[in-house]
Structure formats: structure tokens, C-alpha cells
């Protein structure tokens, strides 16, 4: 059981929660994740650590509502208890002084970038954070990333703020103008794929935090199989970070779609049973 201590709606589909997790917060490192089960009938889903506060004994999670579990979690209130939180899972992101680093967060991905970026900054890197959205009102986490970044680059599809275009355009510009030694991307697979494609011609080491479907998160089931450099690996125990230039993106995206039909059915079932809490 993990109690929700604070909750903040960041955007129509993004909710930040602070949860009580005294033990996990003492061990967790940036880049790791937890496996969460909302309630007694719940599915186990992975969520990255957006804040790690060992002194307070808390963790921060940012949840993008896309299906039943994320919606259930987003509908929970301060004081409610999440049935199960296990972790910290996976390996931490390797923090070193790489020089000039560019960090790209898409969707929920800007949130777990916070502890990673902060640690990279403390390790001596020059940190450029790059975030994007369709339009300025959908932009999140700019202020938070600004707390430690040397600069935060913004791109919007409609040009309502920052560069008109995609985060990859902003990344390309940064590489061309100032040079970048190391890149990390967290977000939807398609975004991480295009970030990797952008850095490939420049041969810049690019880390991506892969998000395959998981069950246990401990290496017991193999649901999270990904192919990296032609080798099958487990996203949960070998990752979640991998070299973006070696990832088989087609496979990752295909496997993410395994349960589309079932997820649709589950969502319909959830909405007709739980309208009150879903609209909270």
C-alpha cells in the first residue's frame, strides 16, 4: 500500500502524484521505475520515477492517462492508497560527465527526465532540455526542467511558443549550432525513434528509456522483450535504458500494440462502470 500525499493535474491527460514510499525512495536512482497495481483487480504497470526524495520518504510519479490503469490512478485522490508499488526496478541511467548533453522528454517523459537531468548537471554536464507539444497550452514541465538546465528549448507544432516544428528539429539545431556530446530521450516510442535517427548521422551516443509492455518487471516473464543490436533483451532487467541506435523500433511498436482490442474493451467496461470516479 502506498498513500497518495499530493496530487496535481498538469494537463488534461497528465497527473503528478507524490506517494509515500520510504523504502523504495532510499534505494531509487534516476532512470529507474516502479511497478504499480492500482487496486485488487489491477494490472501491473511500469511507471518511471519523476521525483526521488529519500529524506521525505516519497516518490513522484507522472501518469499519462491512456487506458484503464492510468485512468484509475489518475482518478485517485490525496489520501487514497495505491494497492501495490514495487521497485526500484531496472538499472539506473549511467550518470557521468559527458560534456554537453541534450535531454528530450515527450508526453510523460519530461517528468522522469527531471531527476536524470539534475544528476547529470551535478555531475558537471552542460544540460540542454528540449520539450515540445502541439501547442503552447499543452506544454508541461518547462519550469521544472529550468530549475537545473542550462537552457530549455521549446518547440511547438503550431509555432505558438519557441521553435515551430518538432523536438527533433530543435535537437538538430542545437547539435548544429552548439554541438552535443550525449543525448537521452524518454517518451513515446515514435519520438525516441526519431531522436535516435536524428543523432545517428552525427554519431552522438543516444540513450532511450524503452517502454515495452511489462508484467512482473523482475525478469520472470519475458513480456518486455526488445531487440537491441540484434539481441533479444528484457526491457525490465537489462534496461530500461538502451542505445537508441541499436533498438529495433518496429518490433517495440508492434509489441506495444499487442492488446489494442482488449484495451479498448477494458476501457469501455471501465467507463460504463466507473463514470463518477473517472470524471473526478
Amino acid at each position, binding site marked *: 500500500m502506498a498513500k497518495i500525499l499530493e496530487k496535481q493535474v498538469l494537463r488534461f491527460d497528465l497527473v503528478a502524484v507524490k506517494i509515500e514510499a520510504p*523504502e523504495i525512495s532510499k534505494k531509487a536512482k534516476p532512470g529507474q521505475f516502479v511497478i504499480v497495481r492500482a487496486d485488487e483487480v489491477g*494490472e501491473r504497470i511500469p511507471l518511471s520515477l519523476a521525483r526521488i526524495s529519500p529524506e521525505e520518504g516519497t516518490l513522484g510519479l507522472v501518469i499519462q492517462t491512456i487506458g484503464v490503469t492510468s485512468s484509475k490512478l489518475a482518478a485517485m485522490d490525496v489520501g487514497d492508497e495505491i494497492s501495490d508499488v*514495487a521497485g526500484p526496478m531496472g538499472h539506473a541511467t549511467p550518470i557521468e560527465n559527458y560534456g554537453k548533453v541534450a535531454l528530450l522528454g515527450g508526453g510523460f517523459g519530461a517528468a522522469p527526465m527531471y531527476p536524470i537531468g539534475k544528476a547529470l548537471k551535478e555531475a558537471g554536464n552542460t544540460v540542454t532540455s528540449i520539450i515540445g507539444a502541439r501547442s503552447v497550452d499543452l506544454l508541461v514541465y518547462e519550469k521544472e526542467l529550468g530549475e537545473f538546465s542550462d537552457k530549455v528549448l521549446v518547440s511547438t507544432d503550431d509555432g505558438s511558443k519557441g521553435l515551430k516544428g518538432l523536438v527533433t528539429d530543435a535537437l538538430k539545431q542545437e547539435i548544429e549550432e552548439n554541438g552535443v556530446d550525449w543525448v537521452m530521450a524518454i517518451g513515446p516510442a515514435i519520438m525516441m525513434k526519431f531522436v535516435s535517427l536524428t543523432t545517428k548521422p552525427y554519431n552522438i551516443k543516444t540513450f532511450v528509456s524503452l517502454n515495452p509492455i511489462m508484467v512482473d518487471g*523482475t525478469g*520472470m516473464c519475458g513480456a518486455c522483450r526488445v531487440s537491441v543490436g540484434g539481441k*533479444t533483451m528484457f526491457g525490465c532487467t537489462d534496461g530500461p535504458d538502451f542505445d537508441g541506435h541499436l533498438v529495433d523500433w518496429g518490433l517495440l511498436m508492434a509489441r506495444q500494440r499487442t492488446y489494442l482490442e482488449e484495451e479498448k474493451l477494458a476501457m469501455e467496461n471501465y467507463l460504463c462502470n466507473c463514470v463518477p470516479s473517472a470524471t473526478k
Partner: protein
Amino acid sequence: MTEIKIHEYTKEELKAIRKTRTKMPEQDAVARGKNFEEVALGYNIEDALREANRCMFCAKKLCVNGCPVEVPIPEFIKLVKEGDFLGGAKKIKEKNPLPAVCGRVCPQESQCESLCTLAKKNEPVAIGRLERFVADYERMHGGGSNGEVDKPKPTGFKVAVIGSGPAGLVVASDLAKLGHDVTMFEALHKAGGVLVYGIPEFRLPKAIVQSEVDGIKALGVDIKANSVIGKLHTIDELIEAGFDAVFIGSGAGLPMFMNIPGENLNGVYSANEFLTRTNLMKAYLFPEFDTPIKKGAHVAVVGGGNVAMDAARTALRLGAENVYLVYRRSMEELPARQEEVHHAIEEGIDFRLLTNPVEVIGEEGWVRGIKCIKMELGEPDESGRRRPVPIEGSEYTIEVDTVVIAIGTGSNPIIPDSTPGLDLNKWGYIVAGDNGQTSKPGVFAGGDIVTGAATVILAAGAGRKAANAIHEYLMSKVKN
């Protein structure tokens, strides 16, 4: 309590009943293929008394030699014969703490029952069914596994038990009864190990596992779920935090794949994933439970052990029209329990023996078939079994939409990688002496993490030995 009427069998009657074992009622083969309820229904009192009377109580007690933990078999059967079922259960528990589980899942035909004197001419005594009967009787009559134990005097020693499978359950139970303060750490959200995530409901009802777990809780064991040792705490940290001894019973939970083309297509599952989704996560009750599973119409399961049988029969219950069991050796070498093979055949599982997959065929990312090659048996290999060799040019494709790989499991690296000084063998399993002592002082191990994937009774037996050794280890600390 039910009135127990003892019938004195005459010589003639005894002669007659000794020929064939008492049948255990079962769910009808067609009906059960559509539900997840237990297949074998267990003996009633009359059945049990009849079966107990079949035992000749021979002096040699060969059956006991066949039991990995040397359950006093004739003695417990004698108590059953006398109608003292609770006494029978107690007798078994002197050696085997998990009779309700073992009565259901032990490979009796290759252990105790294979040596039964009756088996020379007739069918062996159904020892497993009697074991199950007394354990169920005890559970239903309130004498739960740890029911009558008085609270022992606390010793002040703290023991950490990692993993809640049969090995961990036994260690925790034994040590708690001796007055040690036991904390159990389980990676998953529910305790029970393979007994909850792997072995299906239709073979081992989860209520039985839960009663074992409740039993150790009642003894004061603190069960910490969602605690992955190696991630949340390392073993060294547990010791620093004041645990006087540690037992590792983390099982052999790493799924193996075949490394054939197409293995990552959508619709290819490891048996662990397929069974975990179904059993632990209750995907068969989706969408009432949130976890989905692909309910294949045509399913191929690769492998021939208990895991493969469980996966095949689970696929059937999820609604498959055809389930193929693809195994590279022949019927004789099938390592699964006889009863499971028998049940699988009855339920209509299509056995493709002497057949080995070479490729999973896909279309747009999804499984469409499994290409197999026929095999023949050649010379015996190191294991003494005849080695299967492919017959050139015999490839053919079975059209399926789901493939479940059940070819075995290995050692999960999380604990080894986070525990300096813990010796491993070349397969990555923990090296431990007969009493479970590892290369690290105060750290013991047992069950599948030491032996590789084995059986419930071996894990339980290893747990008992380790518990004794841990107790001795702790008590010697007092003296010094």
C-alpha cells in the same frame, strides 16, 4: 464432525480391492475444458478408507525410500485406516509440511508409488490421493497446518526469508515455530511462488496456497510483498540491518526462449508470462480483472514438462479450438506427471511428439504458424535419454495464432548480481551444501535456485533441511 464408520474388510474383500486403486472422482473431461475449477475432486471418507485398506503395511516400506523427504507413509496410511485422519495429516507433516499441495502435484508415479509392493502385481496404493485427502480433511476441520502450535518463546534472532515459494514457506514456518523472528520478502504482490503464479487453479486451487500463507502469518511471520531483494535491499544490507541469518528461496524464474526466428512476434509467450497473466493476474476473468491475455484459437505449446501441460490446458480453458503440444522426444520421455499427461489427452490436447519447432511464422507482426521438423531418437545423451535428431526434409507448418514456449527456466541474475561473495555454479544457480549453507556466512539457500527447476517436494525438503541448519547456526551463536 462427520461420523466415521470403520468397515472391517474380510480377506476376500481385501483381495478384491487390492487389484485396482480407488478411483478419484473428476470433473467430466468436456465440461472441465471450459472452466478453471479443480479437475480432480478428491476422495471422500469411504474412498479413503477403502484405499488405505489396500496397503499391505509391508516391512520393507519401499515407498518411503521413494519419497525425497521420507514421509512415514505406512504409518500415516495406518492412521487413515483407523479413521484418524487428523492424526494422519500430523504424521505426514513430521516430514512434509505441505501435504495438501504435494498430494496434488508430486510426481508420485516416479517416487513413492513406483516402489509400492502392491505395484508388482496390481496397481500401487494411491499414496498421493490419500495424502491429499488427509490434508484437505484437516484444513476443512479446522486443524489448519499450524493450528495447534503454542506460541514459542522468542529467541531474539531475526531471519530474512527471500521468496515465498514452497522452500521459503517451509523455512519461514519451521523457524517461526522455533521462536525466531521471521520476515519474508516476496518480489510479487502475492505470496506463494510458482504455486500462485505458475500452477493453475484447475490443478492447485489458490485457496489451498493461501491457507499455507495464512498459516505462516498466524505464526507471526511478517510477509513483505513487493520487495525485490537485490533491488529494494541487498542481502548485505539485510545483514547490516540486523538479520542474523538469510535464506534465499528465489526459485528458477527466468524464462528460456529457443532463439529461433519469429520468437518475438506478437502472440509468442513464455509459459511464465502466459501462466502469470492467467493465474496470478486472473486474465481469464478479464475484463473483470484488468490484465488481458490473447485468447488464441489455435495454440502451440512447446515443451513436455508440467509447465507445458499447464500451459496447454490453460489455453484450452481460455477458449482455444486446437491446442498442439510440440515435444521433441517421444511419449516415454515426457517429463510431466503422468496424471497431467493423461488429463491433457482426455481433454483433447493434440500431442505432436518427436517434433521440434524451427521457426515461428508471422504476418504483419503476428504469429500465423509454427514451422516444425520431425525428429527421431538416436543415441542416448548425458542424461541417459535418447537424443532426438532432426529428420532432414521433414519440415511442416502448423497453423496457429499463439505460441507458448515452455522449454525450461533458468536462474534470475538479480540476487547473484547484487550479492558479492555468493558462489554460483556454471548455470548461475547458487552453490549450497546439503544443509543449504552457501559460500556466505549466515546465508542459506534451497529449492529451485540451488537445484534448477525441480519439484515442490524437493524445494520443501530443502527448506526443512535449511531451517534446521539455520536454527543450529543461530543457537551456536548464543553459546559463543
